[in-house]
């Protein structure tokens, strides 16, 4: 029946109405993984037995007439930086090879309680540092639309899994665009909620003032459905905010008449690929046709976001990653002479090049004599960027921008030049610095058949606005229904 091709909304309804069993759903997803993942390599590990067992439990509950939860029977793929009790949690790093998490992250607990089924763990840039998933210690993930291209990153495995129909929905984390950018490159929907909207307890930390959990889906409705389950306050994460999480699907009425959409001039300057630009202009026309009004706004500090981000993120990373010292868990170097050597060799052997680069840069920016010039300066610029958002969002309900200046580039194209790589995150990074929500939504393809997406951003806790606008857009268009040929391969009868 190829249930992996259906939406989360359909699958959950079909399971609830007993038209299909959760077991059948999981079997179809596992079959798709077996067919397609040898090419895409979205997953690091697939828990076939566990997934089937979880599905059978849902089916048994249903047979007994018990409540199965809002996501009952829905298979979910999870990025490798989420702690899942008993599962190897590596963050695609050698330093955590063999680390089996002793507990569930809060979002994992919530997914389990809502009847979702954990099928496997997806590939990523090591410790979420990267924009292509090429920084994984365990191999490259391929873009399902063209295997010679990167899927984006850092949550590239989750995006590729959803795009290749090897998962119906997936979890990711977004520190500077790590959900929205791969979603854009792979042609699926990806949301980064407001900072503090989703508990990060059990998400392995990269840059704590920027990291946020979000999800991938085929369409906005599915995205809203999963967000409704994972959002909310958690006393185990002191940065989660005690604002009630609504049912995000309730605001998806297709109605956007009178919604004011800001178009920030600075996001449409030189460097934006012409095909991406014209696709976004078409989105503006579509949304106007639905009754939204658009106005140009200015966000003058946009151009400084990447510089501020790499100082702040690296500084926080250098502090967060100090814990991988070989003492309590993870890799430890063989027969060190003394404690000092145990620390330095363990890290030297365990971390990959990009992680080392950010640790050194962050340590340098925080070191005596450089703190004011780099770190404090970056924090002040962050204030200016945040103010840009506050001012723009006083005049409009949401902002519409590109997600990335280009479509997915070739594997290996930018690996030798970290700075050029960083610049590909130009349109997504400010969102994290300001702490506002952002969503990536497919809106076309370039002449080489690679997906193009647009981004919507709103004020803190304005997820309902961007979901409503995104959903209305998808009622008028069918870009989100297109799938790569790799996913169309029928199972052999």
């Amino acid at each position, binding site marked *: 029946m190829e249930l992996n091709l259906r939406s989360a909304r359909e699958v959950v309804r079909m399971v609830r109405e007993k038209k299909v069993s959760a077991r059948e759903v999981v079997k179809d997803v596992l079959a798709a993984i077996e067919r397609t993942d040898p090419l895409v390599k979205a997953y690091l590990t697939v828990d076939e037995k566990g997934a089937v067992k979880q599905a059978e439990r849902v089916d048994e509950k249903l047979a007994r007439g018990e409540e199965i939860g809002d996501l009952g029977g829905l298979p979910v793929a999870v990025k490798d930086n989420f702690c899942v009790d008993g599962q190897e949690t590596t963050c695609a790093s050698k330093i955590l090879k063999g*680390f089996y998490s*002793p507990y569930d992250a809060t979002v994992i607990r919530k997914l389990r309680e809502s009847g979702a089924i954990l099928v496997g763990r997806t590939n990523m840039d090591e410790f979420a540092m990267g924009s292509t998933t090429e920084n994984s210690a365990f191999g490259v993930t391929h873009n399902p639309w063209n295997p010679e291209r990167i899927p984006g990153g850092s949550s590239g495995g989750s995006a590729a899994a959803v795009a290749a129909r090897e998962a119906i929905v997936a979890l990711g984390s977004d520190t500077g665009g790590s959900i929205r950018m791969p979603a854009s490159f792979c042609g699926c929907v990806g949301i980064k909620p407001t*900072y503090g909207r989703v508990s990060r307890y059990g998400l392995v930390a990269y840059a*704590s*003032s920027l990291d946020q959990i979000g999800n991938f889906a085929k369409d906005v409705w599915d995205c809203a459905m999963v967000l409704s389950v994972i959002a909310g306050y958690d006393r185990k994460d*002191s*940065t989660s*905010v005690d604002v009630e999480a609504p049912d995000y699907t309730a605001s998806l009425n297709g109605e956007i008449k009178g919604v004011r959409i800001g178009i920030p001039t600075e996001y449409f300057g030189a460097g934006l690929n012409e095909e991406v630009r014209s696709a976004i202009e078409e989105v503006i026309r579509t949304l106007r046709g639905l009754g939204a009004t658009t106005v140009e706004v200015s966000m003058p*500090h946009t*151009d*400084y976001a*990447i*510089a501020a981000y790499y*100082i702040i993120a690296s500084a926080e990373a*250098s502090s967060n990653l*100090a814990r991988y*010292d*070989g*003492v*309590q*868990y*993870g*890799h*430890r170097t063989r027969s*060190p002479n*003394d*404690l000092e*050597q*145990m*620390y*330095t*060799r363990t*890290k*030297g*052997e365990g*971390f990959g090049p990009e992680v*080392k680069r950010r*640790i*050194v*840069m962050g*340590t*340098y920016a925080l*070191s005596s004599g450089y703190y004011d*010039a*780099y770190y*404090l*300066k*970056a*924090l*002040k*610029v*962050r*204030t*200016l960027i*945040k103010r840009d958002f506050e001012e723009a969002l006083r005049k409009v309900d949401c902002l519409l921008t590109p997600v990335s200046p280009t479509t997915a580039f070739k594997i290996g194209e930018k690996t030798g030049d*970290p*700075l050029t790589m*960083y610049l590909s995150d130009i349109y997504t990074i400010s969102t994290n610095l300001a*702490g506002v929500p952002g969503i990536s939504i497919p809106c076309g393809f370039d002449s080489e058949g690679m997906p193009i997406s647009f981004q919507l951003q709103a004020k*803190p806790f304005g997820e309902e606005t961007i979901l409503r606008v995104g959903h209305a857009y998808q009622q008028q268009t069918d870009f989100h229904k297109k799938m790569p040929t790799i996913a169309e391969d029928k199972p052999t009868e």
Partner: protein
Amino acid sequence: MKEISLEDVEYAARLAKLDLSEEEKVSMTSQLGDILGYVAKLNELDTDDVEPTAHVLPIKNVWRPDKREESLSREKVLQLAPKAHEGQVRVPRVVE
């Protein structure tokens, strides 16, 4: 601002307790030079009267009541340790 030198990279790596090969130090010096050169554009902005933003939430310290709660068992935690001995994590000798 002065350019980052090989000695700066070595110094930061030492602070971070991170072992780098000679090759890594050389390539990192040039890459960090590029990145910090780019970062220097922040100096175009006058931020004298701007307050820093460490994080975006209006939250200061968050405390929980000082009550004993369930936590992971010692057994479960020690299973994760590269070396454990008599209920404790074992590391190379610290005091001579």
